[in-house]
Structures are given as structure tokens and as C-alpha cells.
């Protein structure tokens, strides 16, 4: 049975990737299963300098969803290269570095330093949790075009994946990413959401707005992936509320070449392994020998 897929020239053992910010730098998950069982792992978003992140509370549960306002806490590029990357490199799997800058220059510096160190770079242009940076790029047409082209030119070895914001028009921005040379796109990042504590009458989060993830957003994410695959030819990685193999299959059938599981990892560290197993079972049950017979097989 073949489960392997190609993201451009990059071969993944199977289409299941853990999403950025939901699997740390692989250290914790590696205590529970052999990381090399995964298609790939995405590192927590990395910035040039270490970031402390937002003050608590950082989490709020909503119906079938999770609002988070982590604020991109991360160890910064230097410690990432020195401490975190060598650890995850011990496992035989592609590593995706998710990067976030406050300016084009910062993105460029991150990309240059990480080029060749990781198999792919996922440009996070869509995080709603920092005031400067992310969101600005994610919804500004020419800024995204400029950023993607510049980073693409810098990269000699690593693949470029652009991660889209659900706050932007997906068709338009997938096209911009493709035209600017991105090797693939991934979507969606969390959807901007909000919660109010009715007893204190305060927003739950200091930043007021936080990012919504989890099963609640799945139908929206799937629609956006559909919009993306109907627009571009480059591989699309589907993300959003994928908890089970059945969820993953919806995205693959719709045309995603691979998927990322995020919030699912919180509920069960073995989620991604269970998703892989479930996809195999589905293929067995339906007499499908190659996952490529599933990808994009939607019958209209």
C-alpha cells in the first residue's frame, strides 16, 4: 500500500503532518511515539529573536473549538538552530520550519539561516496573535506577493510553503502565492475569534481577538481548501479541525495533497498516528492501493 505523497520535490512517507504550534519542536511527542512515523513535523513558529508570548490566560474553550492567544512564544532562531533542530534531526522525517517576521528583512534573515537546515519553510503570514507582523502581511496583496517572491529567491535548498490566513480571500491569495513562486500552500491558520467573560464583562484575552482552531472550523477550512485546489496547481496542504482519519480523508478527497493535524494533538498525543492508521484502514476497506487514488478524487 502506498501512502507516500509528493509536495513538489519533497517526498512524505504519508500525508499526515503535525501543525505548527501544536507539536512544539518534537521533543514532547517523541516521548510517546517514533516521530519518523509521521509524514512530516512542523516546528512551532520561529522568530528572529526569542519571544516571551502573551500573558495568561492563553486558552479558552468554545463549542467544539479552542481560542488561543499564545502570542508566538518561541526560543528564537539561534536557540532553535543550536538546541531544537539537532534534537528533531535525530528522527528520519522531513522537518518544516514555520517562520514569522515583523518585516520583510526579518523573514529574509530567517529564511536564509534555515535554508537547507530544514526540508521546508512554512511562511506564517497569518497569525492573528501579534499586532505587528503576521496579520498585516496576510491580508495585504502586494506585501504577500513581495514577501513570497523574496523568500523564494533566497531559498536554495528548502521548499517554500505559504500558509494562508482565513481572513483573506483564499482564491486571490492562493493565486498570489503561486504566482510569486511558492512551492505549495497550506491552509488554514486559526480564524480570528473572540470571547467575553460575562461576569467580569472583560474580553477573555488581553489582545481581545484570539485564534480559533479545532473541529468547529472544519467545514470552513474544507471549503477554503476546495477554493484553493480549484484555483492553483501547486500542492495544497489542508489544515483545520482534523481530528480523525475521516476528517483527513475529506480534505484529501477534496484535493489536499497532505494535511496537518493541530488541536487534535492536544486531545490525544497519538492523534496523528491514529489518523495514519485510519487512512490505511479506509484504503484496505475500499481496495485502494495508492493514496494518490484518493487525493482530489472528489466526484462532482
Amino acid at each position, binding site marked *: 500500500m502506498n501512502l507516500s505523497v509528493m509536495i513538489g520535490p519533497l517526498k512524505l512517507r504519508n500525508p499526515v503532518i503535525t501543525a505548527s*504550534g*501544536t*507539536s*512544539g519542536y518534537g*521533543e*514532547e*511527542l517523541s*516521548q*510517546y*511515539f*517514533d516521530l519518523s512515523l509521521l509524514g512530516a513535523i512542523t516546528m*512551532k513558529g520561529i522568530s528572529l529573536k526569542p519571544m*516571551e*508570548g502573551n*500573558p*495568561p*490566560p*492563553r*486558552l*479558552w*474553550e468554545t*463549542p*467544539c*473549538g*479552542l481560542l*488561543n492567544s*499564545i502570542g508566538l*512564544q518561541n526560543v528564537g532562531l539561534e536557540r532553535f538552530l543550536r538546541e531544537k533542530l539537532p534534537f528533531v534531526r535525530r528522527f528520519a522525517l522531513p522537518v518544516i520550519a514555520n517562520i514569522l517576521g515583523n518585516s520583510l528583512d526579518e523573514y529574509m534573515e530567517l529564511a536564509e539561516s534555515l535554508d537547507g537546515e530544514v526540508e521546508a519553510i512554512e511562511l506564517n503570514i497569518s497569525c492573528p496573535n501579534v499586532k505587528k507582523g503576521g496579520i498585516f502581511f496576510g491580508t495585504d496583496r502586494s506585501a504577500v506577493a513581495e514577501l513570497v517572491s523574496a523568500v523564494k529567491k533566497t531559498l536554495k535548498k528548502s521548499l517554500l510553503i505559504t500558509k494562508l490566513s482565513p481572513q483573506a480571500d483564499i482564491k486571490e491569495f492562493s493565486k498570489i502565492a503561486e504566482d510569486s513562486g511558492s512551492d505549495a500552500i497550506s491552509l488554514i491558520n486559526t480564524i480570528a475569534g473572540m470571547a467575553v467573560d460575562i461576569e467580569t464583562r472583560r474580553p477573555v484575552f488581553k489582545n481581545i481577538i484570539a485564534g480559533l482552531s*479545532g*473541529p468547529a472550523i472544519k467545514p470552513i477550512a474544507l471549503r477554503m481548501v476546495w477554493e484553493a485546489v480549484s484555483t492553483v496547481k501547486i500542492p495544497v496542504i489542508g489544515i483545520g479541525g482534523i*481530528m480523525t482519519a475521516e476528517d483527513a480523508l475529506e480534505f484529501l478527497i477534496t484535493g489536499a495533497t497532505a494535511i496537518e493535524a493541530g*488541536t487534535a*494533538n*492536544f*486531545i*490525544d*498525543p*497519538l492523534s496523528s498516528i491514529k489518523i495514519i492508521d485510519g487512512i490505511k484502514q479506509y484504503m484496505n476497506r475500499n481496495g485502494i492501493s495508492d493514496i494518490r487514488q484518493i487525493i482530489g478524487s472528489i466526484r462532482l
Partner: protein
Amino acid sequence: MNLSISFKAEIVENTAITPDIFKLTLRPLDSFSEPLPGQFFMLSVSESHDPLLKRPFSIFNFKDRELQFLYRIRGRGTRLLSEKKQGQRISLTGPFGKSYPQPDKSTQEVWIVTGGLGIASLNFMINRLTGEGQRLKVLYGARTGPELRILEDIRVKEILIATEDGTEGFTGTVLDLFNSYSMNLQPSSLIYACGPQAVLSFIDQKAQERGIKAYLSLEERMACGFGVCLGCVIKTKEGYKRVCKEGPVFREGEVIW
């Protein structure tokens, strides 16, 4: 590799001790790792995606391969948990977190300072310590007498009680109790504390003032319980730390309250 981190268990018992405090006994149906005192499990309160997140509960006791928890109904999740019946199944992940360190040789006396459901985290440690013949003093505070029922299983010689309404023992909080006994604390004493933030920050301060070692068990809202979401952080002298991973047990002087 530790594929036993996520498993199912059958409810052996889920009974009310007071109207809002329950004791839950689970018999794991798959393999799992033995928990240590101070560690916790994440328990699913629903078989659906709503509520989405598992809830953290300290391991109250571990005996004959059965896991015991003590919990209070706080919100929707704990209410759903309290409605579960014997024979139903529930999903768990864990054990997670750092356990209470053992007292070292120089420790002459251990003080356990806690109130309310804080005992859920300390009971297992108390059992360990008494098993090892450690000298123990338990200072316990409850809102009112009937809540002391949760101490019924606890076998300790020296247990000092405070109730806020004075229905039993000392009248006041566990902190009042602590204050009126604290002259007995020796530099070679060791404190284990668990409870509301007010209790912990107070004990932290007293321990630092008196140069006494203390282990404080904290709580924060959690999504994952094992360190990947960065959602459960508290401020410490070395920056944000994850309660689920670097904690839940912290040393005196570590946390910025």
C-alpha cells in the same frame, strides 16, 4: 516509545462525598504508565467534541492498578463528569507533570499544607510518606465541617483542621492555622502545599522568609497537559514556565505571583 500515554478506563465508582465533591475510581482497560504522587491525568468529560478539551485531575490514589481521583464540580466539564455512571468508559491521557520530590535525608519533619480539593494532589504523597515512616503534620482547611468527609480515607496521626465557619477544629482558613503553628517549623522542615493561589503565594513567602524548603503544586487552564500548546504558563523568575511540564510542582521562590 510509550504508546500507553492515551488509554481508556472503565468507571468503577463515581460517588458524591458532598453534594459537589466526587470520588472517581477508574480501572484502566489498556496498558498505562504508573503515576507518581503529584502527577496528573487529563480526563475526557465527554465522548464528543464538546467540551473539546480533556480536564486535568491530580492522581488522588493509585492502588491495585486502579486510579482514583477526587474532584469538585466547578463548571460544565466537571458537571458532565459527575453525571457519568459506573460501567461507562472514559478516555485519559497521562500521567503528566513532575511529581513531588522525595524529602531528602536532612528533612526531619514534613508539613502538608492544603485546603479544599488541594488534598486531591497531596493524598497520594501522604500515603507514600507515611508508608516510608516519614514524620508528617497535615494542616487542612475546609469551608465547613461536612467537607471534611473527604479526609476519611486519610491515615495520618497528626492532622490539624480549620473550618472557615468554625463547625470543626480551628476557626479560620488553613493560613490562619499555619500562622498559629508556624513557630514549630524548623529549618529542616519541608513543606508540601497545594490549594488556591492565595494559599500557595502565602506559603511561598513564609518559606522564603524562614529559609524553609517548600514544594508548591499549581493549577492553570490546560489544553494538552504535556507541554506542546504553551497554554498553561505561569510567570517565574526565569520567564514563563509550563505548569504541565516544568510543574505542576514548583519550588519556593520560583513563581512570580
